[in-house]
């Protein structure tokens, strides 16, 4: 699906003065943010910096959390969690099309599984999949809904290093083909640089650094800037 020109000019996600707090602790402190349609944005931050809270707010999952501010997001939003969150009592294909109506739902589900490299595993139980395969199925479940915005909360955090590299390629490919706006929460600086066009560093509930990534550039510069923003100093041997 080619990006619509009108979509490009209008932000997909728009936050104005977004504040969220748990008890006395203010986790998000008046965040202003525009994510243009079709942009791949990564959210970096220490644990407790509020990146997951931000993601959950955009996903509309923060029931009962105190807060204020304006928040607009597209109609069709998909979420990929750290765990695949496949229902163990439904076969893979049934998991992918869960909640979809329409006669062609299963055909679209099969196509989505094919696209993430799980063609032929439609009838498998989630318990029979490896961690990487389960996360591929979760990606298929998100894709089949043709999201305008894809939210991902450390989707590769539980995978081994080799599987993670493969998944990075897959996600980038899928994004190029379908062009949803992506908001990826991660604590992995390298993952953010490899995947995203723009990296935000959250710090104490605010955006501390907003960095645009040019993929033609050497990555080392971005890496040290992001690490510095996260308060990590690296000895260069």
């Amino acid at each position, binding site marked *: 699906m080619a990006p619509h020109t009108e979509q490009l000019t209008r932000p997909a996600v728009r936050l104005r003065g977004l504040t969220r707090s748990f008890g006395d602790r203010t986790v998000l402190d008046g965040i202003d943010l525009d994510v243009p349609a079709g942009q791949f944005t990564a959210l970096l931050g220490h644990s407790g910096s509020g990146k997951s809270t931000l993601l959950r707010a955009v996903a*509309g999952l923060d029931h009962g959390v105190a807060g204020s501010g304006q928040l607009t997001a597209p109609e069709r939003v998909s979420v990929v*969690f750290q765990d695949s*969150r496949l229902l*163990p*009592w439904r076969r893979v294909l049934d998991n992918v099309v869960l909640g979809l109506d329409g006669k062609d739902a299963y055909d679209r589900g099969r196509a989505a599984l094919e696209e993430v490299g799980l063609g032929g595993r439609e009838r498998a*139980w989630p318990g*029979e999949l490896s961690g990487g395969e389960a996360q591929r199925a979760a990606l298929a479940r998100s894709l089949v809904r043709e999201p305008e915005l894809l939210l991902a909360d450390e989707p590769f955090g539980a995978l081994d290093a080799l599987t993670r590299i493969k998944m990075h390629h897959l996600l980038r490919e899928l994004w190029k083909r379908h062009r949803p706006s992506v908001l990826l929460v991660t604590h992995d600086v390298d993952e953010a640089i490899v995947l995203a066009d723009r990296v935000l560093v959250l710090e104490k509930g605010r955006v501390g650094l907003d960095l645009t990534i040019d993929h033609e550039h050497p990555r080392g510069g971005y890496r040290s800037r992001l690490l510095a923003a996260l308060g990590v100093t690296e000895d260069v041997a």
Partner: protein
Amino acid sequence: MTAVTTATTGTAPVAAEESHRVRPRRRLSPGRRLPAARLAGPLVFLAAWAIASAAGQLDPNAIPAPWTVLDTAVRLWTAGTLRTDILTSVERAGYGFAIGLTAGVLLALASGLTRTGEALIDGTVQINRAIPTLGLIPLFILWLGIGETFKIAIIAIVVYIPIYLNTHAALAAIDSRYVELAEVLGLSRLQFIRQIVIPGALPGFFVGLRLGVTGSWLGLVVLEQINATSGLGYMMFQAQNYGRSDIILVGLLIYGVFGLVSDTVVRVIERRVLSWRRTLSS
């Protein structure tokens, strides 16, 4: 590191040690299952009974021989009385079980899915559970008369409690991450119940179901011995008056077979419905 290893393996004692074959570890699990394992115990018992009877070691008035019991069963069956008694008993257990099953599931769903339901139902059921159901018999006879209704009501209560408790516990234990998933996918309430709540609660439901099935037979035995004018329990009660221990044994045997068969049926259904679980345990 590598240099050190090669140096030591070069010496004679270590090389000799390396040529030792790997000895299998002592096995601590019980090992392979015996053929027809579940039938072996009852068959040994039956054989001992038959041998003791044949040797004249058992008082035939207290414990008649197996063939006497079998003979009595055949005679009662051909005379038609046994058939009627079995039918009456099965009917009672069946009605009570069906009502208890429905009530248990509906109450568990209402209590597990809504806060109002939880507030109204859960505490009430817990109190009901604390009262021994068989202690309700005198009251129920006063209310419902000594006919069929009170027996079915008691069996229904015996059945609904374990089904409610286990189903409700399973509902409460459904992973909140799946609830979140349902919200993200925009499932309707009905889809949520069908796709997540019911399959997620099924393992607990089956535990309750097996307890309930056993409970229905247990309740039946007691009811038919105390306040019945027909049924297997009545048959056994009459036999006691005439000193016919063979008829009593026929009744016990039939109760046992019924319990075993219904438990097996539930187990087979469970294995079929929860087939996805086998992939986890393997």
